[in-house]
């Protein structure tokens, strides 16, 4: 009878009947599939304890970091007031619009140069950190830790360092993005190189190719699309990070954003944020198209 019910097509006519039959059969079902319907406490208890721990830590954190009702009673009206002032976004004069556009161009320039040169620098270094190219354990560990250290230092900190070297302005920002992305990209590239299929490399070697040739003809064709796609992703995310390095004086629209927030010109702030939203979505769209053009549509 059970198998018969399973084979019956479920339609809107008989769904109600099936449900009624199922509910009538309830106790018997419970008996037949006792193992499936019983709660397995050995599995459940650690999960429950884990969730309780996560939430206990959350509550502790909220209290410890100073979340209180008073803070929100005084802060939330401020926030609604600020958001109210942000609407509508208004740059007031066309000179301002042109100025922001100029800074936005600077931001894009920083992101583009930063990503490109970080990738160009990371490319040769990533081979050093790939186990299948340089099979030395010490070189592998040292280069990986070096990349981790470089990318562990935030872009804003790198920007402060480079401001000391080349002075305030977008060039310091570009160098900062080159530094922090160098670490991240080198790590990703070397991981991509390590997952390469060894047979192509062996094929080149067995045909009498040198080691350099085996990298050029056996590895590059496979890793290049991965690398290009990662570089495009980083360009997208860098257009976002390039907007904030202006806060420490390293060029781009972040300078105006910081200035307008500090002088409480909220309708200018919302206009800048609106410009950012539009720019980032245009870049996202363009880079998705570019990625598809270069490496083909994503495998569904």
């Amino acid at each position, binding site marked *: 009878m059970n198998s018969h019910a399973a084979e019956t097509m479920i339609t809107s006519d008989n769904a109600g009947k099936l449900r009624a039959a199922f509910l009538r059969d309830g106790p018997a079902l419970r008996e037949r599939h006792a193992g499936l319907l019983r709660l397995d406490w050995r599995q459940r208890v650690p999960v429950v304890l884990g969730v309780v721990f996560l939430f206990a830590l959350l509550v502790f954190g909220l209290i410890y970091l100073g979340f209180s009702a008073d803070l929100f009673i005084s802060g939330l009206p401020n926030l609604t007031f600020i958001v109210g002032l942000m609407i509508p976004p208004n740059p007031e004069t066309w000179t301002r619009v042109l100025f922001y556009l100029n800074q936005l161009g600077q931001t894009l320039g920083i992101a583009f*140069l930063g990503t490109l040169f970080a990738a160009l620098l990371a490319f040769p270094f990533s081979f050093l950190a790939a186990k299948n190219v340089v099979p030395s354990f010490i070189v592998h560990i040292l280069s990986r830790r070096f990349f981790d250290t470089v990318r562990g230092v935030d872009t804003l900190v790198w920007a402060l360092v480079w401001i000391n070297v080349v002075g305030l302005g977008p060039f310091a920002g570009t160098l900062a993005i080159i530094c922090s992305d160098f670490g991240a990209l080198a790590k990703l590239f070397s991981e991509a190189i390590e997952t390469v299929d060894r047979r192509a490399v062996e094929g080149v070697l067995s045909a009498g190719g040198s080691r350099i040739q085996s990298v050029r003809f056996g590895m590059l064709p496979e890793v290049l699309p991965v690398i290009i796609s990662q570089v495009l992703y980083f360009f997208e995310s860098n257009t976002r990070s390039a907007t904030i390095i202006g806060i420490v004086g390293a060029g781009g629209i972040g300078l105006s954003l910081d200035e307008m927030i500090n002088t409480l010109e909220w309708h200018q702030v919302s206009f800048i944020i609106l410009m950012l939203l539009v720019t980032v979505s245009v870049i996202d769209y363009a880079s998705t198209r570019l990625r598809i053009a270069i490496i083909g549509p994503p495998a569904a």
Partner: protein
Amino acid sequence: MTTESLPLAQSIKPTQTAELAALVAAYAREVAHRRRRTLIGLAVVLCGVALASWAAEVKLDVLFDNIDNFSSYVAGLFVLDTGDSVITDPVGWFWGLGKWGAQLGDTILMAYVGTLLGAIIGFCLCFFSARNLMKSPWTCAVMRRFLEFGRTVPDIVFALIFVAAFGLGPVPGVLAIAMHTTGALGKLFAEVVENIDMKPVEGVASTGGAWLQQIRFAVLPQVQTNFVSYALLRFEINVRAAGVLGFVGAGGIGETLLVSIRRFYASDVSAILIMLVLTVMTIDYGTEKLRHWLLGTGERA
């Protein structure tokens, strides 16, 4: 198959030179076409570099003139006030270990609370922005725009705005992280939900399960490991972000770091950076192991 490809194989015999020449020509054309495309791409990139260098005010001469500033700056970070190298007096180097450690703890806690709050909100919103579960396209579109907004505005900008509303301290920092995380995780969660197998959902629906029951018993078991994995990845990113939120007065170790850099308390800068980098590395390593373990158990189940 073999009988069909046989005539072709025979046609490439060296004796039939005309056909061979045609093949070689076709190959040359194909290679030339690809070379041309690469060259055009290269030219576009070079134009971009020229344009961007002009926009970003690249001054290579300044860089080369002052490059020794960089090395002397970095070297200077490892010199104590007394003029000795930091190696000679590790205790003096890390004199503020207790204070900095506490601030670092705050930073991690900020990242944790912000990530969890953002993950909870993102979790609640992702089902409304997944096209396969939300039948109303309008709700979907509005949710998507909201998540995009949260994701695109950098957390430090949220922090600046929240500092203006709530005052200095870790609270605006946590809220900023939560806001940005909601946007980032909400989108990723929605993508996971859109890729699920819909048969269990139909199964629960056919026994009369409501929308919430469909999500609890049909969707959740399919997505939970991926959700946790993405949240862990985000936690790692947020620890880095929380490290510099102090630059705008939103709590954590960033404020001390900024003051040390601005006033050039050289050995303090290197000590704090080392602690920060070590923390970030440890958390990276821990979350990576945890994620691999989770995804491993997810595949076995």
